[in-house]
């Protein structure tokens, strides 16, 4: 009896992390990492071994891999070499056009210069992160894939001294040069500064149920937390998700269609997942109906279906698990004014500050950075942060209008103990009734 499936992932990563607080660099560190993860499936057993000291461990690697399986049967790995019938070499120019450290210094210096005249009115933090990744995946089913990519993210926090409860956060970045360049960053900085000056002793939003319009960022948070995590198949198999057994059921308004698509050139971009499966767009919700879960090879086998190419690991030393890649929320027909016009009194809920959910119950909580009052179809006062509470299915069934303009942005996602980058494509949405606290 042989081993059913083996994948070997080698990742080499050059990274930069920098944090600047009010003009002072408090972190500025480069990283170099290289290691191998070795994943085996045999019937209902699986084993994983990883090391970044390959030269030291290599003589033992095969023994370890075999002992992980705890089988006395003769293994066909690695005596039989991996056939290389499929080879893919994917390269991307990426957002780093020069040395990451130098380019980061230049950007931070530009931001510091620009904000030098604002230090009386605000505190600020700039976090910049860059990765240059070379990933090689080989599987016993014949895949040999090279995947080279770069990613860049800049997070900008502005905190008003006059109104300390207002903390604006924005993220810029992606996997392409057009997603991350000096001019784009400075334009965004200017937008945020202009927005910060709109707040004049902002008041709190009322508590209660109101019609709301969610900005693209909040729309994404609602879908990612309320649906995205709940359709990851490991949560389904263990019965942890409130969407277990809901395939084919109506879980949201008919307006809503959501896809997970790793092919889009955003932070979740990958042509192959970390088990060497070719990625594809996976329709999760089609006109409100739950149509699919997100699978790895193992979860697909357990649920007697096909893998969806969503096996992702944050590092060579992590076992791939079902994760979202790029979440695409289909735009519809409404512009923002049309969504506002029927609202006598409500709120525009601004970008997400924090979002969390209970996958077990579907309860969700989204804290926004700010909100804006809607009165008689017009946007009026800027208000303090608001917290939206409710059950994901209740909120999603109350979505009645979806915007016609889509925003693309990078985000990251935390699941158990691993953090991954995810891309988002989301429009404004109108929700008839939401509970605010």
């Amino acid at each position, binding site marked *: 009896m042989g081993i059913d499936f083996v994948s070997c992932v080698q990742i080499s990563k050059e990274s930069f*992390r920098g944090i600047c607080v009010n003009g002072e*660099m*408090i*972190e*500025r*560190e*480069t*990283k*170099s*990492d*290289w*290691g191998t993860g070795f994943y085996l499936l045999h019937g*209902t*057993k*699986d*084993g*994983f*071994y*990883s*090391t*970044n*000291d*390959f*030269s*030291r*461990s290599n003589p033992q690697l095969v023994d*370890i891999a075999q002992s*992980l399986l*705890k089988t006395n049967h003769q293994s066909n790995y690695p005596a039989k070499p991996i056939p290389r019938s499929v080879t893919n070499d994917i390269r991307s120019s990426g957002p780093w056009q020069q040395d990451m450290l130098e380019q980061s*210094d*230049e950007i931070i*210096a530009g931001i510091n210069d620009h904000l030098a005249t604002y230090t009386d009115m605000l505190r600020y933090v700039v976090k910049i992160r860059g990765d240059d990744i070379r990933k090689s995946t080989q599987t016993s089913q014949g895949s040999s894939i090279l995947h080279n990519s770069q990613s860049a993210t800049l997070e900008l926090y502005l905190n008003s001294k006059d109104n300390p*409860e207002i*903390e604006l956060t924005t993220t810029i970045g992606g996997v392409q040069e057009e997603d991350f360049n000096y001019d784009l960053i400075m334009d965004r900085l200017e937008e945020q500064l202009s927005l910060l000056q709109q707040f004049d002793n902002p008041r709190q939003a009322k508590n209660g149920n109101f019609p709301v319009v969610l900005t693209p960022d909040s729309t994404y948070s609602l879908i990612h937390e309320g649906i995205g995590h709940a359709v990851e198949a490991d949560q389904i198999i*263990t*019965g*942890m998700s409130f969407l277990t057994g809901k395939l084919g059921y109506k879980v949201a308004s008919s307006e809503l269609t959501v896809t997970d698509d790793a092919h889009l050139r955003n932070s979740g971009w990958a042509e192959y997942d970390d088990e060497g499966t070719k990625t594809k767009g996976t329709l999760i919700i089609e006109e409100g109906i739950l149509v699919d879960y997100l699978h790895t090879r193992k979860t697909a086998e357990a649920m007697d279906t096909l893998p969806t190419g969503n096996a992702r690991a*944050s590092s060579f*030393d*992590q*076992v791939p698990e079902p994760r979202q890649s790029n979440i695409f929320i289909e735009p519809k027909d409404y512009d923002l004014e049309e969504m506002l016009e029927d609202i006598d009194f409500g709120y525009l809920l601004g970008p997400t*500050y*924090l979002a*969390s*959910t*209970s*996958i*077990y*119950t579907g*309860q969700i*909580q989204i*804290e926004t950075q700010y909100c804006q009052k809607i009165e008689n179809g017009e946007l009026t006062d800027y208000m303090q*942060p608001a*917290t939206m*509470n409710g059950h994901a299915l209740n909120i999603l069934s109350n979505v009645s209008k979806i915007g016609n303009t889509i925003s693309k942005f990078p985000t990251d996602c*935390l699941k*158990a*103990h*691993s*953090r991954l980058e995810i891309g988002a494509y989301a429009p404004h949405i109108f929700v008839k009734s939401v509970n605010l606290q």
Partner: protein
Amino acid sequence: MAVEYLKEKLEEIRSILDNFVWIKEYQVFMQSLTNQYAKTYEKINETIQENNSIGLALRVLSTNNQLLEKSLAISELEQLNTLTEPKSTMSSREDFELPPLKEPHRSSIAGDFSNSVNLQDRPTLGIISEAEKFTDTYEMPFEHQARVSLEQKLVHNSNDITLTESTFRVNYQISTTFEVYETHFNLNRETAARNLQLNYDEIIRDLVNATISRIKSRTINLPEDACIILHPQILGILISIYYSSKFVNTEIGETIWSKNLNLYDDPHRTNGYYSTLFDDEGTLTRGKQLIADGKKLNNLTDLRSSDWQSGGNGFRMEWFQARPRSYQFPVRPAISNLVLTGGTGKGQYFTDRPGTCIVIRDAQGIPSMGSHRGQFILQVHEAEIWRNGIHEGPVKGFSLQGNLDEILTKGHLSADESVAINRLIPGSVYTGWLVIPPSTVVLRS
């Protein structure tokens, strides 16, 4: 993997760095971490993982006082040969220098016991094998998980002081399928070293029996007038996450919790899970009071945040990572053993109070880390309901939503304490039970 291997590699690193004339001073932090993890379900599904990671983080000060910081996997050591002088656009300070290490009073709290830990014997499978003997008598499926980790760290300064320390941790948990009931068991370094010489029979028997007594849970209509009693594990996780967010933004002197509560960081706690004589920057550690009588008193500092003067809480850590502390992460001010005191009474008697109580023993979720308001939402996996001091059985399937400031202002803490340890948290928290009056938090089924 013994400390000797790190010392061998250190010599290699030193010989490379000594070739660069532009290097004025340097500091090397090295870490070797081996994790082994095993999981079985009904003796059919079996998962075994082993991670072996060695690396270093380097701080180099150039002759023109520019600081270069770099972390490297051991497999990338050759990159040191191509190290280039930092040419930062950031301003440099003429008087800048790396603080020298000081000779510690003892070489290490636990010494190097790595030779007595043999991971090749797969202790994780041994633990599970023992546990399965107890669950074989029950006609229900069980999932067993065991995890061990062996960590060695070394800090070396170019002023020729080298500090080393070893840590060994064991975690075990058991769940019934599709019903998540978990119990964590942790051995600190001294007891781990001792217990490894023994078998795990007694430990595992207690653990399994305790877990089995809590199964057969049910979904209930949540009573609105119930007190909530938080297990120290839950309270500890909330405090540690909260610590990294609102607390550090709170002004010194501000009263944030009940006036009888005190919080301090104790890196020298006897048998403390994260006790250490020196931090990852080689600074000798010391205890620090953070909250006195409900009022914020101090912040934790690393070298950078103390303007390169003091520190003592500089750890290479990151939240919500598979390994919360690693050479790969930058130094940040972080907790060692956080201790919350000021409670009265014993937590086990909290359930004797009149009326209805819900005791929350285990929960998961992502508390709103960094929230302005200390808000949290947790999904409760394991809880019990008590009426007028009588145990009515376990309950499940609800979420808990509230605010940490509020529960630590209105709640009542017990005097007895136990340790909260979670793989996601880069530290440990010693705290009591907390009873929260009705209507302070929101329960939703």
